[in-house]
């Protein structure tokens, strides 16, 4: 029942711009894979290539054991023959049709009987908690309701693969949270292979079983959310993931397990690297103290930004700036002296030239 997706050497150009650059990717059956990246990184184009709405220039795509695209064989199945469903950012409900008609559009094409269609519509609407909305027109519903109907429209014809193109980005913050819950639940129940595109790292972190971070048409790292967060494969991923942003300090190897970043040393795990490096430290991995006796490097609290559940402190030492996150409301005042210490297990080390992670 579950369907893998295999992408091999896929390239898509728009004129001189290479939107997807030689991407190879295997999506295991039943995975919730999120394509994450800044705008223009090629994530949507990759999704559209899978869906068949965009014709790639090179490469091959298998959905299950069906070859849906192959440049060399000159094959490209139309979207309707690929057994997949797509939820659009702007819902794309047909405005001149009722909810019922929107959902049965695909079912009519499959020549389904009326009673079967009624049943499917009922089930699909129940699944997205929109029972009884059959007769509404899209404009008579809120954005959140429209997106639920769009979801039901996809569920009703039971595609093997779900594709979602930033489905939540037109919703307001509260609705987005609700829909995340629902989408994750939906995937849990259906176990359909899902490819989800977003630029929102929170969405990616909270819902996915796997995240592929993209930049300039290339996948930078594909891993579990946990690994992508704690062991970013390169400086781009480290910098892109995490809010507040990761602290990146340039330095050079000094001593056995220390990196000299100028005014102080940062402890790191064992390494066999020489030359210039960059250390990456997540703000919440830095321990903060108001007493010099606890050890650590002396800083000054340049700014203190409480947000209720936690507090972000911008610490400065000369022209070195670190972002530190503390749980709860911090007692630290602005301009106060503070001492910061680092745990070597949480510090990642990157080669400065290539930007790649070097310790393991």
């Amino acid at each position, binding site marked *: 029942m579950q369907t893998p997706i295999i992408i091999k050497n896929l390239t898509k150009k728009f004129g001189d711009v290479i939107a997807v650059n030689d991407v190879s990717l295997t999506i295991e059956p039943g995975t919730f894979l999120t394509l994450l990246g800044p705008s223009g990184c090629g994530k949507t184009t990759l999704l559209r290539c899978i869906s068949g709405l965009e014709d790639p220039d090179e490469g091959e795509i*298998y959905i299950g054991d069906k070859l849906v695209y192959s440049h060399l*064989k*000159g094959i*490209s199945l139309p*979207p*309707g023959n690929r057994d997949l469903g*797509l939820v659009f950012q702007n819902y794309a409900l047909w405005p001149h049709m009722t909810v019922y008609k929107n959902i049965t559009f*695909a079912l009519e094409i499959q020549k389904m009987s009326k009673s079967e269609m009624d049943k499917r519509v009922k089930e699909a609407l129940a699944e997205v908690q929109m029972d009884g909305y059959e007769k509404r027109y899209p404009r008579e519903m809120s954005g959140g309701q429209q997106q639920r109907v769009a979801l039901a*429209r996809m569920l009703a014809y039971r595609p093997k693969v779900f594709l979602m193109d930033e489905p939540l980005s037109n919703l307001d913050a509260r609705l987005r949270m609700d829909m995340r819950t629902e989408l994750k639940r939906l995937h849990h129940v259906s176990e359909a292979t899902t490819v989800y595109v977003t630029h929102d790292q929170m969405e990616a972190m909270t819902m996915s079983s796997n995240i592929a971070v993209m930049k300039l048409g290339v996948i930078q790292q594909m891993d579990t959310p946990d690994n992508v967060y704690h062991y970013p494969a390169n400086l781009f991923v480290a910098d892109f993931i995490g809010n507040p942003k990761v602290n990146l300090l340039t330095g050079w190897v000094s001593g056995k397990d220390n990196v000299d970043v100028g005014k102080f040393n940062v402890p790191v795990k064992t390494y066999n690297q020489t030359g210039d490096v960059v250390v990456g430290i997540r703000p919440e991995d830095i321990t903060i103290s108001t007493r010099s006796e606890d050890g650590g490097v002396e800083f000054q609290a340049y700014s203190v930004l409480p947000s209720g559940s936690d507090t972000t402190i911008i610490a400065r030492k000369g022209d070195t700036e670190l972002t530190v996150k503390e749980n709860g409301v911090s007692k630290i005042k602005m301009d106060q002296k503070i001492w910061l210490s680092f745990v070597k297990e949480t510090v990642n080390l990157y080669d400065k030239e290539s930007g790649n992670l070097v310790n393991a």
Partner: protein
Amino acid sequence: MAVLTKEPQSSKERWLARGRRVYRWLTTPHVFLSIIMLAVMIYLVIIPLYRMVATTVTVSENDLRAIKDANVGDFTWYHWVRMLTSKIAKLMTYEPLLHSLTVALGATGFAFLIGGLMAWMVVRTDMPGRNTIHFLATIPYIMPSWTIAMAWTVIFKNRTSGGTPGLIEFLTGTPPPDWLAYGPVPIIVSSGLHYYTFFFLFISAALLSIDSSLEEAGELAGAGRWRIMRKITFPLVIPAIASGFIMTFSKAMGTYGGPNVLGVPVRYYTLSTMLKSNTSISNYGDGFVLAIVLILFAMTTVMINQKLVGTRKSFETIGGRGFMSKKVKLRNFKPILTALVVVFQFIIAILPLAVLLYSTFMLRSGNYSLSNFTLAHWIGTGEDITINSGEPGVLRNPRIYLGAWNSIRLSLLTALFTSMIGVILGYAIVKGRGTRLSKIVEQMAFIPYVIPGIAFGAVYISMFTKPVGPIPPLYGTFALLVVVSVAKHLPFSARTGVSAMLQVSKELEEAAAISGASPWRRFWRIIFPLTSTGFVSGFLLNFISTMRELSLIILLVTPTTAVLASMTMRYIENGNEQQADAVILILIFLVLIGNFIISRFRGGSLKKGLGM
């Protein structure tokens, strides 16, 4: 588990794959439609243009007397030499060219002055009754372009070219001077009054859409009102002025009605009337040289204009968003200026119709007293041979009914085909956005826009005299009128189609494609229902604009295919002025009915679709 394909082994496989890719490309709906449209447009625009050029350099039977030792079909520069360098070149080409330029520039400038001034007063001053003024401003354009010219002759004509006196001479006893009765001045004024609607609508829309904070910023920077006007407001409305200029100039350059009514009686020929007089004696070689000159001039002007303004998109910026804006207070001048504007609009919108109507009740032309009153031109039996050369009154005249029927069915068919082509062009262009093919289709559809109406008609004379491929010779048939009208409306089709398609976000069709709907099903179930209102209003606008079209078809009509518009010209040429006036009133009546339906259909505004 799937096995990934390596490089295909044999060259046969490679060719197969290549074939599949080409087939897939060709069967992509927008590619498929683009190619069909390209073929249609090559056939309707490019080949006729080529044929016309070819005719000017080919020896025809009529030329055998003039060219020694030539055979029919030989290559010759005879027509070009004759029209551009011989003794008659001045009379045949240069003077008419000069006249055309004078008239077109004059009319454009005049229309700009009136339209711009009125737009400014309506949008930027506290003048009352702006809606009424706005409505009245569209009326002159709804009427056929030569309506005012015909009314002009009733009022101002003198007996220079023979015939009967005009209203002024009848009332005052002194004939108006020649420059006021005929020639460039009346042509410029009468066409300017027709075309000012363009400028009025474009400029008022542009003024409305200017964010007044831009002007306020200027004010804060210490600029005076005049300086702000010159440095900020004016540059911002330049695109609108340019659109008005392109439209008015290319139309005025190829217009036939006005110059025929007001210029020909005193031998003030423009390219269009000279072209007509050449083709009506089958002197196609010479006539087409004139047509080509006309096309080249119109095209260059439009191109220079676009270069200067920068973007062709500029003429799509119609329709403002309406920011708050400070109004100039007219103070004491308010009642006077308002009265002036209203009186002016009344004069150009209502007076011509009244004058024309009055003239249809005059038994003998030139006698404006009540004793001369008659209904003979409307319901006369035609027994008195001295009235209208013995033709019955228009309401009893089967020829008029035939002409009206021709007008209506020509307009209906043109509107129908134009809308259909609009759907296809719109889809092909919008779905292919960014591809070279789409750009070519869009640009080719734009070509008829820069070819003046009468020259476009001339293009078709040479095209369909002989069978072309599977198409039988169309010259003299009603079908030819439909073909030429549809072809001339291509730019309008494309524009309506594109703007209608842009209303439908592409995801709506994509969602249907994902659901497994075929292109055909996607079109009928999704795209068509969502764009139909746009096309219905496009249909109606095409209907009325074809109804009042004269320049385009004047060279192509025959007595059996005559439409009301061409009949007015024939009656004038035969000296049956009252008959002509009655016919144009019937035509205006039909156009007004069409217009009424439009305004019912979409709540009044003519703005959006105006202008091709």
